[in-house]
């Protein structure tokens, strides 16, 4: 057990450290596609460091709830990462039904964020709050359903079991379609849930068209830093989940000589472990690149069309479910 604990912990720390890299990658892809040089890859790290040194400004109307979403977002993100495996080994914590907790963590962060937006008393932030509440109400059952059919297919109740269950994607073509469709459905959910084009535009300067950005208009200083970090974590979690689905490389796939008689790692095992982690990392970065490509190639939808993304995601998830039903 202890032999597994350390790599899992490393995975968690790696996730926490690398999460702010993803928005940088997306921005860099968008800039390249637009023929520009773009911001540095580590821009969000610089921003976070700068914001942590600033004094926050609070609106007169706000109460203590205004200060909650940042800490709540970070706490729920870390909790979600506790149950989400990184690489070949299981997650730090795993218990039956932990995939439901993942949705619960998102709900916690969202609850606090919507309340904080309403706490400012601003008309625009109220608008953002109602959109966020609406779209997340549509996204939540679909997200849960995607995880349910994954758990159904794998016959496991834990995220670690589902993602590192030892089934290889190329074992059978039908399964391969299932994983692809599931990943596609989750990717479609990733876009609106992380306020990306085509549902929301993170870079717009028109408050009327924003969802996530308009909700944090009044946040500043360390509060904003925590919020930015929390949303980067959320993007990371989604990407890691999709990567885990596409690369279900389980502990069974580690080569036979990974452990010695005492159950601790051999050199061969460690290198296999590193390879699996590196593969996952690469997949996460690829998903970020894909998000960047979607953002460069698509226009933002009209607000009334955003629910169509969910319909499509739901339809694909249903097809995935039908493909593994029997």
């Amino acid at each position: 057990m202890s032999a597994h604990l350390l790599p899992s912990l490393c995975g968690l720390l790696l996730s926490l450290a690398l999460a702010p890299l993803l928005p940088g990658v997306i921005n860099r892809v968008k800039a390249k596609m637009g023929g520009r040089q773009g911001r540095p890859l580590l821009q969000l790290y610089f921003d976070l460091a700068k914001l942590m040194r600033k004094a926050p400004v609070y609106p007169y109307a706000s109460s203590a709830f205004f200060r909650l979403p940042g800490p709540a977002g970070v706490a729920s993100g870390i909790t979600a990462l506790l149950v989400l495996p990184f690489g070949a080994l299981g997650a730090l914590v795993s218990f039956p039904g932990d995939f439901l907790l993942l949705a619960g963590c998102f709900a916690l962060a969202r609850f606090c964020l919507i309340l904080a937006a309403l706490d400012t008393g601003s008309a625009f932030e109220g608008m953002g709050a109602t959109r966020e509440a609406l779209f997340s109400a549509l996204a939540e059952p679909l997200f849960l359903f995607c995880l349910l059919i994954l758990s159904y297919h794998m016959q496991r109740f834990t995220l670690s079991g589902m993602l590192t269950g030892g089934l290889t994607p190329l074992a059978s073509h039908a399964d391969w379609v299932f994983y692809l469709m599931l990943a596609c459905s989750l990717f479609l959910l990733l876009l609106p849930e992380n306020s990306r084009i085509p549902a929301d535009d993170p870079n717009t300067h028109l408050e009327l068209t924003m969802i996530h950005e308009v909700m944090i208009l009044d946040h500043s200083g360390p509060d904003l830093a925590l919020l930015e970090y929390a949303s980067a974590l959320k993007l990371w979690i989604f990407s890691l989940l999709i990567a885990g689905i596409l690369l279900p490389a389980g502990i069974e796939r580690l080569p036979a000589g990974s452990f010695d008689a005492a159950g601790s790692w051999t050199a061969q095992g460690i290198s296999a472990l590193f390879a699996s982690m590196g593969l996952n990392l690469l997949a996460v970065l690829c998903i970020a690149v894909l998000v960047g490509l979607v953002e460069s190639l698509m226009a933002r939808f009209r607000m009334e069309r955003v629910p169509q993304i969910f319909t499509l995601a739901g339809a694909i998830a249903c097809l995935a479910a039908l493909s593994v039903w029997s």
Partner: protein
Amino acid sequence: MPDIALATAALSGLNADGLQVILGLIVISDMCLLAAERQRFSIRLIALQGAILGLLPLLVHSGEKDARLIAITALFFLIKAALLPLVLRRTYKKLPPQPPSRPYLGHSLSVLAGLGGFVFSLWLGSRLGDTANPLFSLFFAPAFATIFAGLLLIVARRRALSQMFGYLVMENGIYLLGVPMAQHDAIWLELSVLLDIMVAAFVMGIAVRHIHLAFHSMDVDHFACIKD
């Protein structure tokens, strides 16, 4: 379904899983067609579907691949993947740009209805029992769902061009239903249907342009005024 899989493997050049992947892709493209708002995207999807379907006889056919089969497959591929999309594209280009119109049945609802159609056809397929040709039970549900999606497109869309997409998709479904039987002679029947549709597409392509000249719109609502 292992017995079906075995029988399929024996009958066709491709194993059952590979066929399922292809059929899954067709169903997904149906859903995307139902969800698509822009006609240019729909045309691309139809071309993609046509390409997959055009190659299907070659993939399904077991045994020796003779010259006649290759010729027929090439013909299908040419018509479905190249000719029809090109006609559609030409018609589309000729029309002046218009904003997307609101369909009779919303995009979300039509996707859900298409999904419902797929589930229904799966259910129908499961009630069908064993068929003489095991490929048929594999093909039945996707084919039926494609026909259903085509019908939905015809019923739900407002623009004449989009309705034409519906006819094409429906034809794809009928074709798909015919593929398992298309060992020898049935393929000629299929070809005749295809030619019919192609002529229809040409006629529609011309008619659509004239309709636009007459009504200054492609809304089929306007056709109601010529009912007498």
